[in-house]
């Protein structure tokens, strides 16, 4: 099965290793991974800040790129970018042809763990020694319904002890431009979550969203915490060449 990997701009520019880990996992699930080097951003920051008109041309690029690829699924190591692609049809209220194309792409778009489980992955290939807690990214959880898949996969990583956090599904406070529009509030929301994370004594806080990780990792570092924030793909594919 051919799969188009949508790495997202954050992974592309800041943490490309997450993208490589995602590709490794997809290959492990028996997929041929295609990557279109022309991809940029899904347009989410524009939609969320009140400028959906600016997002539409970016959405068209993602749609056209996927159609060109000939892949059967579009997979992103991000619940929030995948959810944004699911919302594309709403951007084309006045363009029925594009709306239809957007709808076709949306049904083929998946968050990474969601796709891996659907492909039948029952054991993650990685080995990881440590106690790992999970942070549900809001859009993956609530827009795409990704709840069990990452937990199920994490529990199968050799050497890993999975810790269910009480505040696992509490928002981290990132919220896109919210993080810089209301920085003190954004950080206070993160602290609500991280107080539990630090008290639990886990080694790693894992998440399926690089954007949540930007915020959580930044805050953990500033708090002087020993807990590392890692992407799900990095944990699941840890130690796999």
């Amino acid at each position, binding site marked *: 099965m051919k799969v188009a990997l949508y790495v997202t701009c954050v992974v592309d520019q800041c943490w490309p290793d997450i993208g490589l880990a995602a590709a490794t996992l997809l290959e492990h699930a028996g997929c041929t991974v295609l990557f279109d080097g*022309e991809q940029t951003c899904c347009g989410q*920051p524009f939609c*969320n*800040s009140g*400028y959906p008109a600016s997002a539409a041309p970016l959405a068209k690029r993602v749609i056209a790129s996927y159609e060109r690829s000939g892949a059967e699924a579009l997979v992103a190591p991000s619940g929030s970018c995948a959810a944004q692609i699911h919302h594309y049809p709403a951007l084309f209220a006045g363009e029925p042809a594009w709306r239809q194309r957007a709808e076709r792409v949306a049904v083929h778009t998946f968050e990474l763990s969601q796709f891996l489980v659907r492909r039948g992955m029952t054991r993650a290939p990685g080995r990881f020694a440590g106690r790992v807690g999970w942070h549900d990214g*809001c859009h993956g959880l609530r827009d795409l319904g990704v709840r069990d898949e990452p937990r199920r996969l994490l529990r199968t990583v050799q050497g890993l002890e999975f810790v269910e956090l009480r505040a696992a599904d509490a928002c981290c406070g990132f919220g896109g431009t919210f993080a*810089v529009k209301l920085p003190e509030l954004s950080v206070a*929301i993160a602290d609500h979550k991280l107080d539990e994370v630090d008290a639990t004594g886990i080694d790693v806080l894992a998440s399926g969203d690089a954007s949540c990780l930007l915020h959580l990792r930044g*805050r953990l570092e500033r708090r002087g915490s020993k807990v590392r924030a890692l992407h799900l793909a990095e944990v699941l594919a840890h130690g796999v060449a």
Partner: protein
Amino acid sequence: MAEHLPMQQFPANARAALQNDTQRGALRAAATVFGERQKKTVAGNPDWQHWRSTARAVKDHTLLHLDHYLVAFERQALARGTRVHWARDAAEATGIVLGLVRAAGATLCVKAKSMTTEEVRLNEALEHAGIEAVETDLGEWIQQLAGEVPFHIVVPAIHKTEAQIAALFADKVGTPPHADAAALTAAARERLRQKFARAGVGISGANFAIAETGSLLILENEGNIRLTTSVPRVHIALVGIEKVLPRLADLDVFLRLLPRSGTGQTLTTYQSLLTGPKARPGDEGPDEVHVVLLDNGRSRMLAEEVTRQSLACIRCGACLNVCPVYQQVGGHAYGSVYPGPIGAVVTPQLVPLARAAQLPFASTLCGACRDVCPVAIDIPRLLLHLRQRVREGSPQAPAAAPQRGERLAMRLLAWLLRSPRIYRFAAGTARWCRWLEPVWHHLPPLSRWRAGRSVPCLAPRDFRRLWRQRSRR
């Protein structure tokens, strides 16, 4: 007179609220309790999703035919001796109520908890006219004594600790300074009973208005609403036009949803179904019943398909309890009678949008509000719609609060992202200019990010380069 904080200054209000540790502690504890209770009642109900979609379907139907059901309500209410008044806005509503109170010759009104009366600032209007208005819901009375507006739409004094209330009562009511909750409640009861006995008019809102029978349904736990609507000679109810439901039978599903969502109760202690004044002199109940139907911006929400669902809200407050923003800053920071996620949706549609322009941005868009909403209002979707109206405007109206600099920056960024070559060039340039990082770190948005978080670095090589290397191998 209790004043709201300026809603234009949400960011400053929020910062101030974050400094108030006592308030944050009380708020977190209470919101957690209510949130947990709601979760438990929902988890124990396999039919929950079915109830939600049924209730929403009833609301959608009613809103699509609101003109019909409002007139039907009026007809049935009149037939049962209730007098019905129509108020276009807050000024008309307070004018009508004031006229009725004066006509009744009352100088004291007892009030049931009602957000709609808060919305039109009825207490202020009555006070200006020399009429005493006493809140009789315990939380609402606490807020009135403290000179504060409600902090939460269901639990007005959710942010106050027992010790704070004891100190307030010691000052205003004369109870011992360390009285416990039971003693404080007893003191409130004694004071308020005297007011009930003397009041000429009782003023309430309503949870639902039934078109089929011209009845009002009001839920409560303290019994004060039953007293307010039955002891004084005159009962006036101020009711938003969205509160109407077609049939008595429709209450079934809403009576299941509202208490469970609001307080986590299976049912509230009291449910009063009020249908007109007393029929015979020996009966219980008021001599006169007036219903004031309030528009105040609601028909504007009704007119647009996107915003119509804002009117489905049954004011349960569940979205406040689960909201990460509300949990941190509480109700007053919003500067509106309706705080929290639903407040950030409703307020900008009730007041001029430019005044409330900050509120749609007071959300991380986490969607917890949409999940918990008993009538499945897509609050994040509405927030995005309002953000667009604030920044870019709509075909009907120009942007309410455009930010030219931000708009320019966003357009530039969108243009840059439209071309993969320019995107790669820009990222490459940024890598090459890493030595300039100390400068960027002092400029927005990074300067604002750095307040509390370390700044992520660009990777030495982007994904596409690593991918090419990997493919070659």
